């Protein structure tokens, strides 16, 4: 029973901390780019403001437009529930494995894209079309990278896979190196960061995710924004805990959990800095460069998989 308690606590922490991680990334980015930085708590203020505001929607919006924020939020929370954050074992990981996680991210994307087309403005359709293109190319990369880990660990259960990496100690696995690079590239694309998309722009011909949600306001927008932050954290937690799980709590004592909390927070913060540096040194790409970018990521993922098959399984 205590496992489920920890799992639920972890999920709540996940949901609550996601805006903080977003705030941290924004703050470091501002410092790195010589701009005055907003407070770490700014994302919470933004969300609170949006929740208080009127929702304004277009005359011809259908029920789908109004339902989408809830579906997207719920689907993202399901994915957050199955990624180990602080402690192992995670009982919820048995409910939905990594393929289901990819499926739920796809479900959220499906509905966001549909909502983008609901009003019938040019921007919405453009965003949806591009998002589906990026998603179509990114999903196989995501699955390939996690399959590399799943094949090594002989499980698609994320909790078991993290446990496997933890148990096998510090073994140099070339396949994991390729896989983590591929996963990082695809995470950048999937969460709409530079160089694929820019979360900070509006009303530009280059925007993708923002174009789809352009018609949202008030609490609907708040839910979508929050879901986007949780999604970013899901990817980051996946990267740090799947490939570098050391420090995660393996028992449910207070000391162990506290250690897990501190270590995970530090790892996520560090990965946030890496992301910021990446975003700062890269320029935003043209849309039709994105396939090449994702093609490269796919190649890395494939190399990881083949390295595993050829080098790491005795034949």
């Amino acid at each position, binding site marked *: 029973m205590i496992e489920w308690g920890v799992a639920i606590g972890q999920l709540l922490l996940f949901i609550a901390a996601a805006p903080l991680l977003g705030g941290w990334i924004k703050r470091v980015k501002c410092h790195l780019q010589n701009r005055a930085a907003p407070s770490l708590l700014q994302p919470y203020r933004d969300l609170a403001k949006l929740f208080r505001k009127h929702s304004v929607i277009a005359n011809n919006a259908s029920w789908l437009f109004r339902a989408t924020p809830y579906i997207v939020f719920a689907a993202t929370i*399901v994915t957050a529930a199955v990624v180990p954050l602080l402690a192992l074992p995670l009982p919820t990981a048995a409910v939905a494995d990594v393929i289901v996680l990819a499926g739920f991210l*796809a479900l959220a994307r*499906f509905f966001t894209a549909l909502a983008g*087309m609901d009003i*019938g403005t040019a921007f919405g359709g453009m965003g949806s079309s591009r998002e589906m293109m990026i998603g179509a190319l990114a999903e196989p990369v995501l699955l390939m990278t996690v399959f590399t880990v799943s094949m090594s660990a002989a499980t698609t259960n994320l909790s078991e896979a993290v446990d496997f990496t933890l148990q096998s100690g510090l073994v140099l696995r070339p396949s994991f190196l390729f896989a983590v690079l591929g996963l990082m590239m695809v995470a950048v694309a999937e969460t709409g960061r530079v160089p694929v998309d820019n979360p900070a722009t509006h009303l530009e011909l280059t925007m993708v995710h923002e174009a789809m949600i352009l018609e949202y306001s008030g609490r609907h927008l708040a839910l979508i924004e929050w879901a986007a932050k949780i999604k970013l954290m899901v990817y980051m937690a996946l990267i740090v805990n799947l490939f570098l799980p050391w420090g995660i709590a393996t028992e449910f004592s207070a000391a162990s959990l506290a250690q897990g909390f501190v270590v995970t927070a530090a790892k996520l913060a560090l990965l946030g800095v890496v992301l910021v540096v990446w975003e700062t040194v890269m320029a935003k790409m043209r849309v039709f460069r994105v396939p090449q970018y994702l093609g490269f990521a796919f190649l890395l993922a494939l190399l990881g998989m083949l390295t595993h098959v050829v080098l790491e399984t005795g034949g």
Partner: protein
Amino acid sequence: MSPLFATYLALASALLAAVVSLGVTRLPTLLRYASFLLLGLSAASAMYAGMSVLLTSTSVTMELPLGLPWLNWHLRLDALSGFFLVVIGVVVLAVSLYGPAYVRTFVHAKAPQSFTALSVFTALFILGMYLVVLADDAFMFMVAWELMSVASYFLVAYQHQYPANRRAAFLYLLMAHIAGVSILLSFGVLAGAGGGYTFEQMRAADLSVTWASIAFGLAFFGFGMKAGMVPLHAWLPEAHPVAPSHISALMSGVMLKVALYGLIRLVYDLLGEIQWEWGLVMLLVGAISTLLGVLYAMLSNNLKRLLAYSSIENVGIILSALGLSLIFIGNGEQVLGVLGLIAALYHILGHAIFKGLLFLGAGAIARATHEYDLNNMGGLIHRMPRTAVWMLIGCLAIAGLPPLTGFVSEWLTFQVALQAPVLKSGVLRALIPVTAAMLALSAALAAATFVKVFGVAFLGQPRTRNARHAHEVPLGMQLAMGMLAILCVLFGILPSTTIGVIDAVPQLLLETLPPEATTAGWLWLTPMSADVASYSAPLVALALVVVGGLVYLLLRVRAERIRRVYPWECGYGEVNARMQYTATAFAQPIQRIFAPVWDLDEEIVEKRHAKQPQLVESIRYQLQRQDKSWSRLYAPIGMLVLGAARRIGYLQTGSIHTYLAYSFFTLLFLLWVVT
């Protein structure tokens, strides 16, 4: 009711439906209902018969005193045919609900076709499909197969006033017969070795690996062509869309599955020992079909054509799962082979349901708007709210999204593919993950395709007058779609229960049960064991509903009223329908990335202002896309056949003297041979 009686009832009522339909022009309304009622009865009893053998894992054999004097018609109802009877029954049942209202548009139409033909051939087509899956000898199988093919030819050719339909129907008939010949030859190989045409004798035949492989090759070509595998698929997107929509649903949803039934029956049941090389061929062809099928679908703007292409994708998924299964069985991994087979069967069931649903939905749209082109639709969610819900469920299911039925088979297929490390051959170990990547790419592209379908057809603003004045379809049609949509959800969230029933098929064919798929109860799906992979669809669905609902209620407590306003279009005046992304525009990024897949002919003509050349007055954009299999495979073969015919045609001079000379020389030649 015994399964035997139910089977006879299904066959008899389908036959009776055909007979009743003969008089349909006399008493249109009454007999139309009677015909569909009988078809519904036949579907229900087929499902009953199928379910009872699946649940009890028994098999029943029958012999009808028909057919050749020395070879009566043998019928056999076992778990495999039972499963396919259920698949056929589900879609036929939906069609029988849908039909009466839908076909009314054809009754009063002042068109050259006879309504009788539609009703009679629909019933015969369905009867043919029942008989194919029940056949227990090759002769009976081929007769049923031809009944199915020829009856569906008349349905494809139904609206024969359009030249394109006539062409499609001819192509369909041609391909069906090339496939038929190939299947017949395959049975011939088996019958030669087994000494007879009953499946019993074929099963007992002792084939060498070479002969077995030849039989497999012929059968794979024949059944694969009928199922629409790439590159033999070109007929499918021509033929399936031109039939009336409920027929398209039967053809795409069920008839392709009947072809796959033939393949499964032959490979798993009749051919004896399974070679892994067959699996490899099937896996590769399947993976390519999946990817190309979905890419072609992505670029189609005609809704029914798009759905037909998407069937090619789904047949590819099924072939991939079957291929994996054969590879594992050939390498001695019986248990994994069983799982692959279950994944394939699950997808067969799922695809029949959601493709049936989508085709019925396309028919509903056509009835309401008279449009097939996505670019002429738009905003239908406001005009046809219920159809929109059912179609949305169908789109989600076919896109392989959890927690609906398409996801379960995809998940199982990935789980089987992930077991590749147990294989000894390094090539296979490397190849299987690559094909898994192709499946993942196709699944994501399928999601993009169905965002396009739903987004362009149902969302946004109506693009034409027809779309603006659409009306919701009658109750019967809604019921049919609703039934299939609910099944999409049920089979999505109750996979363990479903697999517990499907189990009977691998038990029959491979005498192995999947190890632990269902041992953890109805809540859990654990194909290998709980620590390898588990998925609890009911819990996931529950979590989705609970979280979404809770958030909604929480926000409702103190939510302000939602304000509705005109959308802002950057100050250019009112938003109009022409500002929206079209279906072509939506697919354009994918078209650009995967350009080598199609024969593209793009033309952009810019007209500039005479005095100020920097001003563009108008732009005309023309795009022609064609499936490459036409220009690379079908057209060359067609030319070759024509060329050969022309050469042989030189013999035919039209002069009696020459013909007499031919006869004379032939006689001389024969005399020489005899002596």
